[in-house]
């Protein structure tokens, strides 16, 4: 059986500015990020023959391919479940390139959420779905849905708001080192966190990600081709998607064990295919639409035992120099919320040695997609 292990690499990354409001539209921002990523790789747009995206992306591959001047495209995929699909784009392109279906793949995300519509404004369109069993009762927004899991998690395992603050602070501290981050010049204190307004109790303002305008992209080629590219390759070591048995969208309340979410399913496959284990991960980029997703993911990906995710955040463990530095660009909580794609590019920067919060000699990085929804993850490795 063919293995995807280190068969492909990310050789180019690109991004636009991040802001509450950018003047250009999503399509233009997407094209800017993709062209920048190709330039970073030193690959001509006419060589691109594969695209992968994930849902809630408004610009489709037809528009992007035409605009940037791609060649004939022989592979394209779009993964469902919004933020759960970020790393799956890397997985699909790695598979396509490794099996010869394409040579140069582009994954991207473009978003105008800072200046665009609020997701809960669209709540009515979800009523013909299982949303009919949640939305009418006022569970309107993702924050409300994750708040339910967070409350139960805190009740079962003694996790506290201080643990959630540790997550928000680690992300903010890294953003304070990253001039491109939305929260670059805005430090966070415990007092600010504890006195901020509620969004959905037990989640407060700082437990929620940022609404952001911006776009990112990356370029994937075979490991062989990667040797001739402009940048040091970052190998795609292991990939996985996760949709657990009896899972339900973002409201994982209806299966037997709601606190072991999609991360657990993705993790089993991810580690089975890898040459290293959680204790060998130098730096992690963990999807942080909401702070409770971090302790849940730490457990799911095997960095600690079940119920230990809150305690894991203590003692600066998630900070630079800690046991597991996370979200070193600032993450969705403090760099930009672009459905997790900034986490992928930040992982690449760490393994190139060019992060604004560089972990010394980082050689392995875990990147995850949204926990709570059908998810995906990728292990990156330096040469």
């Amino acid at each position: 059986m063919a293995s995807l292990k280190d068969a492909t690499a990310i050789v180019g990354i690109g991004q636009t500015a991040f802001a509450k409001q950018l003047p250009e539209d999503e399509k233009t921002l997407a094209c800017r990020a993709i062209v920048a990523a190709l330039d970073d790789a030193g690959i001509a747009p006419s060589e691109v023959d594969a695209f992968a995206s994930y849902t809630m992306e408004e610009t489709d591959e037809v528009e992007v391919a035409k605009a940037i001047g791609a060649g004939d495209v022989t592979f394209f995929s779009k993964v469902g479940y919004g933020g759960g699909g970020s790393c799956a784009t890397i997985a699909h392109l790695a598979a396509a390139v490794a099996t010869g279906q394409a040579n140069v793949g582009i994954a991207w995300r473009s978003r105008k959420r800072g200046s665009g519509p609020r997701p809960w404004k669209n709540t009515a369109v979800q009523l013909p779905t299982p949303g009919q069993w949640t939305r009418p009762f006022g569970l309107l927004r993702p924050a409300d849905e994750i708040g339910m899991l967070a409350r139960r998690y805190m009740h079962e395992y003694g996790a506290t708001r201080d643990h959630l603050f540790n997550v928000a602070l680690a992300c903010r501290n890294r953003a304070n080192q990253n001039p491109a981050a939305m929260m670059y010049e805005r430090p966070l204190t415990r007092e600010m966190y504890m006195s901020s307004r509620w969004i959905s109790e037990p989640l407060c303002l700082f437990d929620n990600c940022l609404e952001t305008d911006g776009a990112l992209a990356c370029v994937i080629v075979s490991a062989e081709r990667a040797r001739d590219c402009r940048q040091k390759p970052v190998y795609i070591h292991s990939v996985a998607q996760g949709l657990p048995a009896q899972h339900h969208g973002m409201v994982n309340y209806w299966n037997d064990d709601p606190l072991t979410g999609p991360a657990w399913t993705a993790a089993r496959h991810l580690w089975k295919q890898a040459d290293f284990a959680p204790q060998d991960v130098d730096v992690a980029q963990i999807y942080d639409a909401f702070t409770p997703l971090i302790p849940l993911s730490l457990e799911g990906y095997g960095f600690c035992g079940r119920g230990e995710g809150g305690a894991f955040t203590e003692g600066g463990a998630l900070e630079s120099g800690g046991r597991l530095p996370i979200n070193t660009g600032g993450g969705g909580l403090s760099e930009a919320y672009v459905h997790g794609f900034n986490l992928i590019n930040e992982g690449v920067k760490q393994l190139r040695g060019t992060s604004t919060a560089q972990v010394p000699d980082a050689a392995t990085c875990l990147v995850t997609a949204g926990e709570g929804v059908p998810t995906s993850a990728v292990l990156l490795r330096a040469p």
Partner: protein
Amino acid sequence: MADATTEPLLSPTIDTDGAPFWEYAAQGELRIQACTACGELRWPPRPCCPHCQSFDSEWRRMSGRGRIWSYVRPHPPLLPAYAADAPYNAIIVELAEAPRIRLVGNLVAAPDAPLNSVDPDRLRIGAKVQVAFTDVNGIAMPRWLLERP
């Protein structure tokens, strides 16, 4: 901008799988879909039993008693009809006779009382609750009352 007086609370979209739930609700009964072949309950309703793949189902009457499994208190920004009562509560109830069946709902002081009618200090995981039904937009919606008000 729309306001709470013109925009009602959201109503469920009643589909084929879920229709019996609402028909029984209109009679004041809480019923959950069960497999006729193997007897397993399932929620939300769907065409096929995930345990034995039978397509035959029935709707089993529940006592209507349960416990709060989790809860949140949403604050604005929210849709107008919900913002009007915010912060309100949304709860998950695990049913007394089938704890793995969990329903999203609201804890209220009386069946037709607003979603913010219970003192937030009374919200507690494990609190025992009892179902009641109230008419919202012509649909009998389940609401939950504390067993010891």
